[in-house]
């Protein structure tokens, strides 16, 4: 026993490296997302704001913030948000489908596809706030659009876009459409190109018209991607903020008809009202969750039954949001 028996074979565990490498994400996630998330919910039950340089609260007030929220024009802002989103999303999905169908159609042989793809994606590269500033300048009362319309004789006097409900909402919708239709087109093209060509060939042999092919073959085959586009766009739409905020200079005017839910939330941060802002966030979160579940289960009924597909389920990605 003088000599120790042969050295033990150390067990090599690679798992710790795995944990180490994913640790940064989880640390950052907990510190910067999970804790603030929990705090948001927590403070929504408190009176907690700043009056001048004095901090009021936090004093627990139960559900008072939620009561006040539902007594306010919350539904109107929800309606505004949905209208602004739909007004941008409907043309966006129509145009994107059309472009995707054309660009992927083997018989059309469109030249310069790559070029068009780049061009239609371009508006998405501009920062939303910069884009809104640009539109603000272009469509201002004495801006170039009005100057052109008047000098061409189309209008007698400048149209005050930002003083009219339809004008302001229209501009927001137009911007969201321009910014996101390229992104959607590319997603849908990828989906269409993923369909087996033999299906199209078979359809052609059976004498389908292009329209029939589109509605009977293409559309059903890309439904999962359509659901993904719809959900991400819906979440992005509900969180619409920067474009209307900057276009209306934070006012949501005229008559608060361009005030979206997040702009309403932002108004509460004027006096750092964490209680009310928290309540708005929580309600918004619940609405988002309900809508997503509705869309998911209605448009994708078979998806969950098929075990194989489960891995491919789409999770809405935060960055890809909006209009």
């Amino acid at each position, binding site marked *: 026993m003088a000599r120790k028996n042969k050295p033990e074979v150390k067990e090599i565990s690679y798992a710790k490296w795995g944990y180490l490498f994913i640790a*940064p994400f989880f640390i*950052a996630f907990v510190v910067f997302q999970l804790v603030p998330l929990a705090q948001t919910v927590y403070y929504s039950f408190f009176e907690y*704001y700043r*009056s*001048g340089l004095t901090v009021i609260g936090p004093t627990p007030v139960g559900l008072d913030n939620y009561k006040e929220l539902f007594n306010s024009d919350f539904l109107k802002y929800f309606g505004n948000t949905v209208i602004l989103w739909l007004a941008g999303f409907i043309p966006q999905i129509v145009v994107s489908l059309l472009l995707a169908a054309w660009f992927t159609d083997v018989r059309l042989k469109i030249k310069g596809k790559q070029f068009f793809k780049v061009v239609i994606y371009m508006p998405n590269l501009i920062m939303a706030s910069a884009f809104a500033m640009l539109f603000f300048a272009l469509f201002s009362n004495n801006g170039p659009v009005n100057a052109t319309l008047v000098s061409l004789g189309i209008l007698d006097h400048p149209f005050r876009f930002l*003083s009219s409900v339809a004008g302001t909402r229209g501009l927001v919708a137009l911007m969201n459409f321009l910014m996101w239709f390229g992104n959607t087109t590319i997603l849908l093209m990828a989906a269409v190109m993923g369909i087996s060509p033999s299906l199209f060939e078979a359809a052609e042999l059976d004498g389908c018209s292009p329209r029939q092919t589109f509605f009977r073959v293409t559309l059903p085959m890309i439904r999962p991607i359509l659901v993904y586009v719809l959900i991400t766009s819906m979440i992005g739409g509900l969180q619409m903020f920067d474009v209307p905020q900057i276009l209306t200079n934070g006012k949501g005017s005229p*008559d608060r008809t361009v005030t979206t839910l997040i702009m309403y939330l932002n108004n509460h941060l*004027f006096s750092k009202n964490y209680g*009310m802002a928290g309540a708005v966030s929580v309600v918004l979160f619940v609405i988002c969750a309900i809508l997503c579940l509705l869309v998911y289960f209605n448009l994708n009924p078979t998806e969950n039954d098929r075990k194989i597909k489960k891995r491919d389920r789409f999770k809405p990605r935060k960055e890809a949001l909006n209009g």
Partner: protein
Amino acid sequence: MKKGFKAVLSLALAGAMIFGMTACGGGGGEEASGEAGKVLNIWCWNDEFQTRFNDYYPEVKEVAEDGSTTTLNDGTVVNWIIEPNEGNNYQNKLDEALLNQESAAADDKVDMFLVEADYARKYTNSDSTMNIADLPGVLDATSDQYEYTKEVVSDADGNVKGVSWQACPGLIAYRRSIAKEVLGTDDPAAVQEAVADWDKFAETAQKMKDAGYFMLSGYDDTFRPFYNNDAAPFVEDGKTLNVDKNIMDWVAMTKDYTDKGYNNKTSLWSDDWNADQGKDSKVFCIPACTWEIDFTLTGNADPDGTKDPAQSAWGDYAVCVGPVNWCWGGTWLTAATGTDNADLVADIMTKMTTDPEILNKIATEKGDFVNSKSVIKDLAANYEGNDFLGGQNHYALLSDAAEGLSLKIASPYDQGIIEKMQAAMKDYYDGTVDLDTAKANFEKSIKEIYPEIETVNWPK
């Protein structure tokens, strides 16, 4: 060996990732200085005071190329922190800094910050501002200043908490060329006759319209003359907002003017509002304040700085008193509690707001109505006239009015209230909503931004 290296490397990588994720939230960070001396942090919302300081403070040695800092003769670096005012942005950022004042490092402390009348009381009623009696020499030097400029920055016990280099009597600035064409004369006394009260003002507006001009640029131009003559502050007890009858008179008059086509439907500070002060504008006059002559009008009337009447509206403006006496704010310097440079702050306050020589230069070169009765008296008698105003001596015109100015109606909430009032009423003038909806929208906005305000009372 190898394993150890791997561990270090992976830790370093992990660290780098975390750093990368958090770095963007840091917001700026270190100070560029470090060579010599101390740092003086001055907070403001535009470059009005900064340019005056750089031009006239005797200790200035050099100004950084990007204008962000000014170096003084003793090596002190003055650090300018400029945050735009609108939407409470300036106040929110400043509040954050003041609440962290105690724990901040000496060079990061707020030493001095500027306030406007619309929210001066918020800070002067708090412990964040120093009593100027505690700053060596400042209070004694202010004896020649206009009373109202001290009154608005005094706390409940009468302690003065700030000083200003300007008093801000309101006036009507008008285009000489349009006055000659429509009224037959551009003489300030004759034009004053035509706008002596609001009835005559409306008559003149009709004449302007008939001749193809607008009396005013936009909706908000006449707000301040009405608001400044309110009977009581908007908010007195911290809970109730009382809208004065004067404000409703402003609403009624502006709606009437808009419907009759007397104004060009612009909003304050918007592009078309600025453009309406230029050479090609059809707008006759703008109710303005003395600080606007240099800060707003000159730049808009002569954007290229030509000083040439042929190419710009330089020299085509003149001023008269207008229908009522009023004033619009001003800018006050306050010393932040906890400053580590109190002596320097005191010196800046004394020199920039009471030194007759400096004030004289500010008046003659920038057109400010400076805050010294004796300097103004001297200018009223001896000033040869302001070129931009076609050689008019506006100090002679306004020196009497300045004695009677008051900002008693200022409350800590006024910036938000005024912004929201003008925004809500714009919809009414535009014809998008009726008056009751506009009022309701105003109340909603107020409850969002000031949760402590429980009721809004409108005049009968």
